[in-house]
């Protein structure tokens, strides 16, 4: 991205302009592209969810709007825009208005460091993984602001549950990501993918038993911090109407909805990048060329959609947990297991150092 920008900035009429302005415009363009791409993708994920849910219940699902119902999200979006924008009379107005923006920001900001393919990353940072985990936690204050400002008991109960759950699940999420940080020796997501190129056993999920377990722990913790079923206590329809966004209507509700689905895409992408080899197809293939990187992009998207399918599949299979069981699962199962994985992986790396050779290299992870 940096080289592209340098090239573009020093060619044609752009060379006349101040370099800082060109960089700012380039950054804005990248923002806009990612925002557009992720919003459209989130819309399609909503469609995918409804179709898969339909098929699992021996129904068909939306198939009227556009080919196979693919444009359903546009119809839904227009419907939501046409709805009345209600702010409760007793609501804390400024907080109420700002909350969806914060949640949305938290879900979208992390896409800046996601490598969609070789070089297809908006900001290639050496703290990428850390930034992803930090940005997804921004959602928490947004949610508690939404719940508090709504002045509704459903909303406040939902947001309290959500915050308790998200703060707790940050721990197993971070610790199982630490397993990969130990193996990779870097937090730069592009470098993490680069180390998983080659044959399929180079993927971090398949490098030894500890990383394999960490993959499942990470995915489960991601589901919980996404508040997807079976961890959808914060918006349990049967108890809390809709949780923290009970009082939101129209476009503000749409923003929450979009944030939720883009967070799903984000966590699938992170899991693909950390554990499933990113753009590596599972056999040695050079995907660094200017055209070949788009093949890598297609592979990343295919893997992401496979994981999204699993998320949807889980949602339509498993019943909702009780809130104390959610906490039990976090503190008594996922946390000890992920700590054990970190210790195990550290030992595995030591063993790799001791053994040396190709197998030792494989054990060490780089």
């Amino acid at each position, binding site marked *: 991205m940096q080289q592209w920008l340098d090239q573009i900035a020093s060619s044609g009429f752009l060379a006349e302009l101040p370099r800082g302005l060109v960089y700012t415009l380039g950054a804005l363009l990248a923002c806009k592209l990612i925002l557009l791409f992720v919003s459209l993708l989130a819309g399609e994920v909503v469609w995918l969810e409804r179709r*898969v849910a*339909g*098929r*699992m*219940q*021996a*129904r*068909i699902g939306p198939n009227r709007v556009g080919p196979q119902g693919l444009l359903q999200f546009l119809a839904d979006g227009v419907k939501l825009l046409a709805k009345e924008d209600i702010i409760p009379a007793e609501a804390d107005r400024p907080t109420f208005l700002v909350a969806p923006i914060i949640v949305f920001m938290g879900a979208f900001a992390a896409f800046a460091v996601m490598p969609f393919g070789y070089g297809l990353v908006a900001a290639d940072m050496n703290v990428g993984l850390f930034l992803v985990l930090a940005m997804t936690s921004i959602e928490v204050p947004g949610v508690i602001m939404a719940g508090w400002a709504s002045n509704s008991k459903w909303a406040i109960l939902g947001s309290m549950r959500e915050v308790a759950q998200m703060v707790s699940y940050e721990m197993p999420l971070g610790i199982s990501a630490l397993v990969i940080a130990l193996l990779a020796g870097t937090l730069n997501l592009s470098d993490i993918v680069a180390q998983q190129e080659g044959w399929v056993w180079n993927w971090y999920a398949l490098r030894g038993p500890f990383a394999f377990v960490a993959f499942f722990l990470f995915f489960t913790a991601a589901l919980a911090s996404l508040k997807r079923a079976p961890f959808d206590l914060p918006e349990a329809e049967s108890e809390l109407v809709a949780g923290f966004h009970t009082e939101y209507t129209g476009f503000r509700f749409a923003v929450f909805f979009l944030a939720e689905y883009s967070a799903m895409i984000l966590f699938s992408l992170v899991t693909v990048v950390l554990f499933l080899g990113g753009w590596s197809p599972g056999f040695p293939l050079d995907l660094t060329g200017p055209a070949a990187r788009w093949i890598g992009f297609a592979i990343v998207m295919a893997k992401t959609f496979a994981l999204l399918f699993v998320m949807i*599949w*889980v949602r*339509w*299979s*498993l019943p909702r947990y009780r809130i104390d069981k959610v906490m039990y699962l976090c503190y*008594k*199962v996922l946390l000890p297991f992920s700590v054990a994985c970190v210790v195990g992986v550290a030992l595995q790396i030591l063993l790799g150092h001791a053994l040396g050779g190709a197998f030792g290299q494989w054990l060490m992870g780089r």
Partner: protein
Amino acid sequence: MKTYLEKVWSGVRTTAKGMALTWRHFFTKPVTVQYPEEKTYFSPYERGLHEFEPDKCIICYLCAKACPVDCIKIEEEGAGKTARLTTYEIDYSKCLFCALCIDPCPVDCIHMGQQYDLSTYERGDQVKIDFMKGEGPWRTKQTSAHPEAGLPEDSGV
């Protein structure tokens, strides 16, 4: 310690079991009928919109008398053997599709049909249907919804 690990294992196992079930269901054929394009089977004795055979009718008023809600309006021209039917109107805002008008007919000229979808775009449409003006279905072999079943001898079951 043992029971803890057993609990964890049983959690993993039952989750996998449940997901295997939905995975199998994912590949079953949907049972949905895409309504306006596809229609489900109806019995030949379905009580839908009436079908009328005007040339059989002998203007005996038995159907109108049998009707519990008085929704059948019959008008005739002339008297005795030269009488002609001019109006045979059923008010569907009253009709309760009980088929009591079918049984007393001595010549079997009124039947219950197959048309169940009576929705319209205008409130006035299809409320009162005058069969003599061709607004409602006339029964012939061709218009019968189940021609293979023939015309039931007593269509009033």
